[in-house]
């Protein structure tokens, strides 16, 4: 048996909605799951600035979720200035606004991860000064060439 050969016809264009999935069993509300995925797609550039999003109806049918749930996600994304909707034309990824939003999303994720790490370390009995030493060590590992103030 030879290795499977990728034929060109297998590279099909995926629709925008095919890039999103929601998991109803997850405790996170579906509209928040959708917001998170669209923001992430914008941050990673898989949804380009100016790109058109599916209509509420189309995305609801594609994801098999309630259209009001999709509409709620779009409303919040509009309020957060990630997308803009022009009546009669549809919803589009905002130019420019997306970059600031993406940066903020990155900061939020990082803050959450760090907070978790501190909580876990504390549960293991490591006090604040001990954790500071560990944090410095981690910084030195990932930013080896940077000069830092020694305390």
């Amino acid at each position, binding site marked *: 048996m030879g290795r499977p050969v990728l034929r060109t016809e297998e590279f099909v264009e995926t629709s925008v909605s095919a890039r999103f999935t929601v998991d109803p069993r997850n*405790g996170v509300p*579906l509209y928040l799951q959708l917001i998170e995925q669209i923001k992430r797609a914008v941050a990673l550039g898989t949804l380009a600035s100016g790109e058109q999003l599916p209509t509420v*109806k189309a995305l609801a049918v594609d994801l098999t979720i*309630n259209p*009001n749930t999709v509409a*709620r996600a779009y409303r919040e994304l509009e309020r957060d200035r990630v997308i803009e909707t022009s009546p009669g034309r549809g919803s589009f990824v905002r130019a420019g606004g997306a970059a600031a939003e993406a940066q903020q999303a990155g900061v939020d994720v990082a803050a959450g991860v760090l907070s978790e790490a501190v909580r876990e370390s504390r*549960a293991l009995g490591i006090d604040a000064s001990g954790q500071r030493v560990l944090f410095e060590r981690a910084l030195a590992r990932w930013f080896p060439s940077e000069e830092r103030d020694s305390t």
Partner: protein
Amino acid sequence: MNAIAIDHLTKIYGSQRSVDDLSLTVGEGSVCGLLGPNGAGKSTTFKCLLALARPTSGTVEVAGAPVTPATFQYLGYVPETSALYEKFTVADHLEATRRAYEMFDPARAAELAATFKLDSKKRVGKLSKGQRTALAIVLAFSIRPRIFVLDEPASGLDPMFQRAVLDLIIDAAAGGASILFSSHQIGQVERAADSIAVLKGGKLVLRGDIDTLKGDEKVVEAIFPGDAPSPNGLAQDPRVRRIERNGRILRVHVTGDADGVVRTIDALSPRTIDVLDLSLEDIFLGAVNDGVA
């Protein structure tokens, strides 16, 4: 205007309070999933909505008016025990529906009959329970109603057809229809509905927007080095719904902001503390089991 308005509905069968002072509205364009254990009063509620049972007290309204024969021109329904004629074939039912409903769409009916693989020459008497449900669905969706009242629309169907029903509900909702449906499958409700109503013993025990309920309901779970202590004052906190202690594990169910509860428990020096999101299933079970010792 509400698509469906149930106001202080009570239905008593003999000595049984099947529905007990139920008030519930479904707004225009919204989809409400009706959940509850067997015997909770779901089917009785549907019967009252479809004028198949007379309320003992209270009222039901569809599209702002009491239910009359004219209501059924724009109301699609799937009853639990299908109102189908044993000796009629599938084709006979489609024909009878075409004559009775102004909005009947024959192309749509043919497409749906094919989707559910219904043999048009078969008599209803020869159909399985699942096929009867499928026929009821085909008829309900062929008249392009604005409002749907669906009692267990996927019961007895195989998974592929259950999915088709789910798609139909979502498609109708995307077209602006208002829908009240019951299901035993929470996954279906969670996808198709924007709100849920939970019945227990004929009473409404939980009602709300699904995303809001999921966003609000949390469990703070802490694991202690020894036996979990009983936290002082938490039981009086209005946000705390339930406290469970099981060996070293303390679980506190919170509605709304959990930060205060986290701080209180954290002061007791647990080994770990986590805030867990609840799935709709957890929330449903919580509502049904609340008050059970």
